[in-house]
């Protein structure tokens, strides 16, 4: 057996893993931001709706949601498993990212809003220019956690047949009878992806930190 080709076969799934992540994570961020703003500033009804959304989405295993969303979406429009899987993971992630951003929004003191209103800013402007920039800084650390989870959960799209890392590891382990090596390689690639991402986000956190005297 040619170990080089063995590894290369699994590693070539990395592009799918990265692509799925790069769709799911920003989609989850976009939805999560909007949902968290509705949650925190939207008034009673929207808060209730968002709270239900969050509870339901976080109460079901991602793989089950993936299937539900996949068959719901692909029943109506013709989407490739890759896109359906990525979008589904993004929707799952939006519930978690909503909670992360909600926590960050709430951790910005209400007095900041009052100070912004006092110079004549509307609520919307204050949220945009004063609250969100401060909340985002506080969200980076918990968000890097979610980024790691989405990278790892991207392996779930293997269930839809997307030839990403895990799918390939499974295929090659079956055809070569080398499951141990196959899954070790897959695990190492995931680990590297998560490790590098967390390092990058740590760097971002440090760069964005507001200067202050000790």
């Amino acid at each position, binding site marked *: 057996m040619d170990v080089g080709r063995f590894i290369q076969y699994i590693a070539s799934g990395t592009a799918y893993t990265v692509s799925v992540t790069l769709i799911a994570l920003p989609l989850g961020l976009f939805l999560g931001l909007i949902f968290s703003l509705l949650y925190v500033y939207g008034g009673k009804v929207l808060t209730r709706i968002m709270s239900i959304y969050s509870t339901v989405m976080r109460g079901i295993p991602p793989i089950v949601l993936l299937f539900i969303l996949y068959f719901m979406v692909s029943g109506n429009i013709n989407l490739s498993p890759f896109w359906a899987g990525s979008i589904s993971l993004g929707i799952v992630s939006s519930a978690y990212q909503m909670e992360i951003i909600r926590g960050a929004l709430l951790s910005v003191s209400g*007095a900041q809003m*009052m*100070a912004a*209103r*006092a110079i*004549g800013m509307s609520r919307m402007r204050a949220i945009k*220019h004063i609250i969100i920039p401060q909340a985002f800084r506080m969200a980076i650390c918990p968000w890097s956690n979610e980024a790691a989870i989405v990278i790892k959960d991207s392996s779930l799209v293997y269930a839809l047949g997307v030839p990403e890392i895990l799918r390939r590891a499974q295929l090659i382990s079956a055809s070569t009878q080398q499951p141990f090596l196959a899954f070790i390689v897959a695990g190492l690639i995931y680990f590297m992806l998560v490790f590098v991402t967390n390092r990058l986000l740590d760097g971002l956190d440090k760069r964005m930190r507001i200067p*202050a005297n000790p």
Partner: protein
Amino acid sequence: MPNPILVVKDLTKKYGDNIIFHDINMTVNEGDTDVIIGPSGTGKSTLLRCINLLTKANSGQIWLDGEEITAPGYDEDEVRQHVGMVFQNFLLFNHLTALDNVKIGLSKVKKLKDDQAEAKAMQELDRVGLADRAHHYPGQLSGGQQQRVAIARALAMDPRIMLFDEPTSALDPELIGEVLEVMRKLALDGMTMLVVTHEMGFAREVSDRIIFLEKGSIVEEGPPEVLFYTPKFERTREFLWKITELYGKKESDS
């Protein structure tokens, strides 16, 4: 003829059955510095917040520059542009430098062009003596410097009146002087100011009128020399001198 900038009529604020203050009437004339004093919990801060509509009063009316700002449908955001507010805890925007704190209202509310906003912000920082701290973040400034930036931030909007809510209460004693100095200069420059404070030295030297608020209503008001020496009520004299003992000395020493 005095020109009334702020007129408050029968203003009442309560939370449930708890009356914070009731039937407050007062007028602040252009160029005057009026000081509100009173024991804590008498609704001084709430009164200021009602005046710039950060809190809604339950009843009563407020006129700013002859226009009733409590009229239904009046644009509150517009009102607050013309009423500067300085808070006890400074409340600078933590993620912005001193310059950007002053500038943000100019660029995002008044919609000035970037270079105009920057020039005006720099000018206001200079006015409070902090041009050399323009690029420091709030966390890198002392409390006194932060409060001066907060004053510059309010001034930048060219307010008709400045409200100060115990602007020196959160400061270390040695930092109080620099803030009072800025306020004294503002008063001399003819800014109309309404100041809640315990700094009796400032009240005595700078104010045109002292308003003594207790248990939610105005006990007595008048020029400082009258309230300190010949007040109508013994309670006024008692409170003023007690506060002077506690707070006033630092100020007259400096």
